[in-house]
């Protein structure tokens, strides 16, 4: 079998898009807290006035962004996921959210992306903490195409957004079709009837692998890529999920307040009461050396766990 080309990194897709726009709009500013990317080199070299190194100083990065945004600048902040979220959460709350400033926060390595770095670099709580912020939009693309289109929206319509990117490249999901589902806030990647598997980011791929196996086992599962966790399209999502017998969510987050919680909230708010199960990380999760797949296995969120959970929901366990 021929080796598959490595998928384009989400961060490169996003930065290339911002860089192209920045060449035509000097009000676009890109601020990094010492995180790089191949695509960033061009921006740094060509537009030094529009690239700002904030220092490994996330608090400064966010406070600085507020002053720039209040002065009419379109500000993009860029850092590793753990440090652009919890590390400077108070700054984001006080000087960005409170004034609803058009600042785009780009996080790289969400969830367990920095697998070998372990605890300090994991973000098992970033969806919960960021979606709790007043007025924020939380976007979590599943492939480079989605990441690029989301970046285009952030450029054309600056707003307070948190864009969470996987560190590792993800196989293409949309084949040119992401734009058509952007407004919907989720992609119904595979349609089914019995169990809807709702995932986001890297775990959409695991859900797809599970779905293939489940088909062979005679279970008609569907896969939904929930790329906009806030504001969640509760009406659209509950309509789609209402067509399934049961719902499974799977995420690289602690269950409290994560993506699965957002789905459950949406279903409750729209009076769609289904049998539902959430897979995710749990308090006291063990930390080991290992890659992301090893961690998924350890935390019970890998493909086999998804398969088992779906079989259980479908009454075939």
């Amino acid at each position, binding site marked *: 079998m021929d080796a598959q080309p490595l998928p384009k990194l989400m961060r490169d897709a996003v930065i290339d898009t911002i860089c192209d726009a920045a060449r035509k709009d000097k009000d676009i500013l890109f601020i990094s807290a010492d995180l790089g990317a191949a695509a960033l080199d061009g921006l740094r070299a060509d537009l030094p006035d529009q690239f700002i190194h904030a220092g490994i100083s996330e608090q*400064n990065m966010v406070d600085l962004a507020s002053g720039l945004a*209040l002065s009419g600048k379109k500000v993009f902040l860029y850092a590793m996921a753990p440090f652009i979220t919890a590390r400077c959460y108070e700054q984001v709350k*006080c000087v960005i959210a409170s004034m609803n400033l058009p600042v785009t926060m780009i996080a790289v390595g969400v969830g367990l992306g920095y697998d070998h770095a372990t605890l300090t670099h994991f973000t098992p709580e970033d969806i919960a903490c960021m979606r709790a912020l007043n007025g924020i939009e939380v976007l979590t693309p599943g492939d480079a195409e989605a990441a690029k289109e989301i970046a285009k929206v952030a450029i054309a319509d600056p707003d307070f957004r948190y864009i969470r990117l996987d560190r590792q490249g993800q196989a293409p999901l949309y084949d040119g079709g992401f734009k058509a589902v952007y407004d919907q806030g989720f992609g119904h990647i595979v349609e089914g009837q019995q169990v809807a598997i709702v995932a986001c980011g890297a775990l959409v791929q695991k859900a797809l692998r599970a779905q293939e196996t489940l088909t062979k086992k005679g279970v008609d599962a569907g896969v939904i890529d929930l790329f906009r966790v806030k504001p969640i399209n509760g009406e659209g999502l509950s309509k789609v999920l209402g067509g399934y017998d049961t719902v499974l969510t799977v995420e690289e987050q602690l269950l409290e307040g994560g993506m699965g919680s957002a789905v459950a909230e949406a279903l409750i708010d729209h009076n769609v009461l289904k049998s539902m199960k959430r897979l995710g990380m749990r308090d006291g999760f063990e930390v080991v050396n290992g890659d992301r797949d090893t961690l998924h296995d350890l935390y019970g969120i890998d493909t086999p766990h998804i398969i088992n959970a779906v079989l259980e929901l479908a009454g075939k366990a």
Partner: protein
Amino acid sequence: MASPKNGKIKLNVNDLQAKAHWLRQELFEMVMRQKKGHIPSCYSCTEIMVALYYGGVAKVTEGQPDDPERDRIIVSKGHAAMVQYPILADLGFYPKSELERFTEPGGLLGMYADFRIPGIEGISGSLGHGIGMGAGFAMAARQDGQDYRTFVILGDGECYEGSIWESAMFAAHRKLDNLIAIVDRNQLCILGRTEDLLELGDMEEKWRSFGWEAISIDGHSFDDLMPAFDRVGKTDGKPLAIIANTVKGKGISFMEGRSEWHNRMPSDEQIAQARTELGLGA
């Protein structure tokens, strides 16, 4: 009020002193009407604010809070941002009647500065944000080829926040000499004296070591304040830190230098005494 010349209001020292007296009176009336507010924190930076707005330092235009060429003034020690309220009304940014509705439902003016108030550049209340925000304004001015300066009033207790120093380092590296920090060095925070609680030490040297031009002055003396502000723009590419040594509660004898008055309200007898000391009627 003196009418502005070249977008600046410039009073002489006697008139500045009278203005400071007026500001303390206005603040006292405003706070005591509602029994809400932080008088001592405002009184330590009263002369600083009067010098900025009325001493020909900051570019402000009466009735035009959104003048794009205005200097940006941020009271980062947000609990004292109310020190601006009487001034901003005096500048015609909103009706003076708003001072009487301070903290009331439907009123414009709250306990902490809100960026929707004309003349308030950004939200404050949580400490440690003003220098970074100010650096953002200063960078934007630089990029847009604008001459406006950004003045940030910091509490000395606020300088415990690490974010202050992250942004101080950044501003110096970026040579933001259009950014000015005024540290209201009143030596007090809520629980006592800074040097007893957690020593701040030589603030002038600290700012200098971060790449700023730094000077120490008497923050209640216009004879000190005006020459300090004359240094703005003459710092050879360095941001300027003015360490203003002040007295918390300056102007009300029983509050001066006493940390317990941070947000305590005086008794009726104490109010009467304060009114006498401030030259207010009974």
